């Protein structure tokens, strides 16, 4: 069941809220976790009945392993801990990677192999990572969960089960254990509903409109059609916006649902395209995943490599640098692989590892030369460079295979010529005769077939580009508007454009959420899956 489907919006969510209300008025609060767990299973069952037992087996075994870790000491404790890690990695590998790796391995050995007819269970990457983090946390001495029902609900809550955020037990234990944000408190309901409406609008209206322009270009690239330079650039930049609106919209909906059912879920986005370097980008994009990677992969690998290097009596500065680059590249390699078992995702991850490494080299270079550039211009330039770098990596992320990515990069680099299509020339005004006369853009051109559907005129595409850019760079983000944990820092608010300030329970905000929801529902002609559902 998708958050933007009619079944979820008009049946499932109202029913859950109604039941919560009934349980609340009957003063049977103790039933809430059970109710939410059953609701989560019903929600998950709708995607594929087979996925439910796979999830329940994972939860049960992890619960038993976690109890074994807590109740044993010294050597046994270590054994149970490593058994838990091994179990989760194997479980994920079997359901997500076996078909692909099996295919490669058997073809190398010259044995024919028919892939097992099972698609990767929805959300398996998320619930496995949530449980790995839990195991590491309790092994390090953090609080554990004794009650199996609470544990099961912590892993499988429908608000974040299918596509995150990657919650940690310590972040939601209070709200899970009945210390709710207030069962159906009118303010949280209204706030959650508005946040949900914003997310739904981002997904169903903006990301959907962008995908209609992006998809034909990537489909044509998959068929090895020679793409027109300008069309490819437009599609690639619009995809950057699409994936942001799609995934941050999904996260907003998850947080909104969390508020409505009384669970405080951590923020996952904070205007990532306003980052002025790649490290800053990862502090703002898919925040819960990047924190996971930092805490459970990067730091342990960095520490182990540094210790190992120092043990070999190598110069400490060399060790520290080598360990940093090694940890960065290996962590981002895993991050890519986590997204999918294909060369495109692996290269996407590694390319981010390379960008982070370049960032460190650049920072060290600046420090050595004592360069402290802090002008408005350099900041904007840094944002543009960061955005374009990330946009280039999204090409790998979006392409179904390496051949598609190569075709897109070929067109982006101008190797299909720099031909300006007539429809773009038409809006260039005074520049038009100049470009036509020069003939420069026609030289060496091999691609003249427009791929973009003709119903989208250039004006519409440019307006879409402008609106997306305006929202991404000029409007306050949802974290600024809805700061949930009561620590609103309005100093961060980048100007109250059009009166969009902090959310308050007011007529203005109820009108905004009504307009957003109605537009999104009317607009959602075709229900499309979220990009992050396949992970």
């Amino acid at each position, binding site marked *: 069941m998708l958050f933007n489907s009619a079944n979820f919006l008009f049946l499932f969510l109202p029913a859950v809220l109604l039941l919560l209300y009934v349980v609340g008025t009957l003063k049977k609060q103790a039933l809430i976790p059970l109710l939410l767990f059953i609701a989560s299973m019903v929600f998950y069952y709708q995607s594929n009945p087979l996925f439910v037992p796979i999830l329940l087996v994972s939860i049960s075994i992890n619960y038993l392993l976690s109890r074994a870790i807590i109740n044993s000491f010294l050597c046994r404790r270590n054994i149970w801990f490593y058994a838990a890690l091994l179990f989760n990695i194997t479980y994920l590998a079997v359901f997500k990677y076996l078909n692909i790796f099996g295919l490669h391995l058997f073809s190398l050995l010259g044995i024919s192999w028919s892939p097992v007819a099972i698609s990767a269970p929805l959300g398996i990457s998320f619930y496995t990572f949530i449980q790995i983090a839990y195991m*590491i946390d309790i092994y390090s*001495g953090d609080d554990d969960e004794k009650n199996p029902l609470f544990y099961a609900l912590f892993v499988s809550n429908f608000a974040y089960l299918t596509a995150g955020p990657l919650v940690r037990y310590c972040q939601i234990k209070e709200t899970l254990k009945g210390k709710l944000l207030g069962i159906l408190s009118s303010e949280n309901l209204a706030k959650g509903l508005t946040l949900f409406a914003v997310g739904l609008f981002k997904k169903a209206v903006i990301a959907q409109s962008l995908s209609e322009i992006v998809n034909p270009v990537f489909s044509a690239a998959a068929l090895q059609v020679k793409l027109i330079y300008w069309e490819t650039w437009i599609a690639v930049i619009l995809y950057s916006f699409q994936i942001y609106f799609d995934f941050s919209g999904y996260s907003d909906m998850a947080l909104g649902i969390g508020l409505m059912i009384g669970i405080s879920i951590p923020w996952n986005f904070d205007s990532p395209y306003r980052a002025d370097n790649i*490290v800053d980008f990862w502090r703002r994009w898919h925040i819960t995943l990047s924190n996971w990677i930092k805490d459970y992969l990067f730091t*342990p690998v960095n520490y*182990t490599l*540094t210790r190992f290097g120092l043990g070999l009596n190598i110069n400490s500065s060399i060790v*520290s640098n080598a360990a940093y680059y090694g940890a960065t590249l290996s962590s981002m390699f895993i991050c890519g692989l986590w997204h999918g078992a294909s060369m495109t995702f692996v290269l996407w991850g590694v390319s981010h590892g390379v960008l982070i490494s370049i960032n460190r080299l650049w920072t060290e270079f600046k420090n050595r030369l004592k360069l402290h550039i802090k002008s408005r211009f350099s900041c904007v330039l840094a944002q543009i460079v960061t955005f374009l770098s990330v946009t280039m990596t999204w090409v790998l992320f979006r392409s179904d295979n390496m051949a598609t990515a190569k075709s897109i990069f070929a067109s982006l680099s101008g190797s299909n010529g720099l031909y300006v299509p007539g429809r773009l020339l038409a809006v260039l005004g005074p520049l038009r005769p100049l470009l036509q006369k020069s003939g420069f853009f026609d030289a060496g051109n091999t691609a003249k077939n427009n791929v973009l559907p003709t119903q989208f005129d250039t004006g519409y595409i440019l307006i879409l580009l402008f609106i997306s850019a305006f929202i991404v760079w000029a409007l306050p983000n949802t974290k600024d508007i809805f700061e949930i944990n009561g620590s609103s820092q309005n100093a961060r608010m980048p100007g109250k454009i059009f009166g969009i300030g902090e959310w308050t329970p007011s007529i203005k905000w109820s009108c905004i959420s009504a307009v957003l929801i109605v537009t999104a529902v009317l607009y959602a002609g075709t229900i499309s899956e979220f990009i992050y559902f396949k992970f």
Partner: protein
Amino acid sequence: MISERLKKVILAKLKLDEFDIHDVTLANEIPGWDSLNHISIIIAVEKEYNIRFKMPEVLKLKNIGELQKLVDSKIST
């Protein structure tokens, strides 16, 4: 209470002249202490006190006060 010795190691590693460090100070509140420098600082602290942390201890550290406590517990054993 953060000891002068621990404070000195941290500030020297980050090339800072002075910064007010308390028990509840978070690593990322100290200028320059990011994931890039985190491990170098931990290793510098180990070196200064001639102690060795375990991985779970490193992962669990939440603020400078906890680092001080961890150092104290290592020295006393």
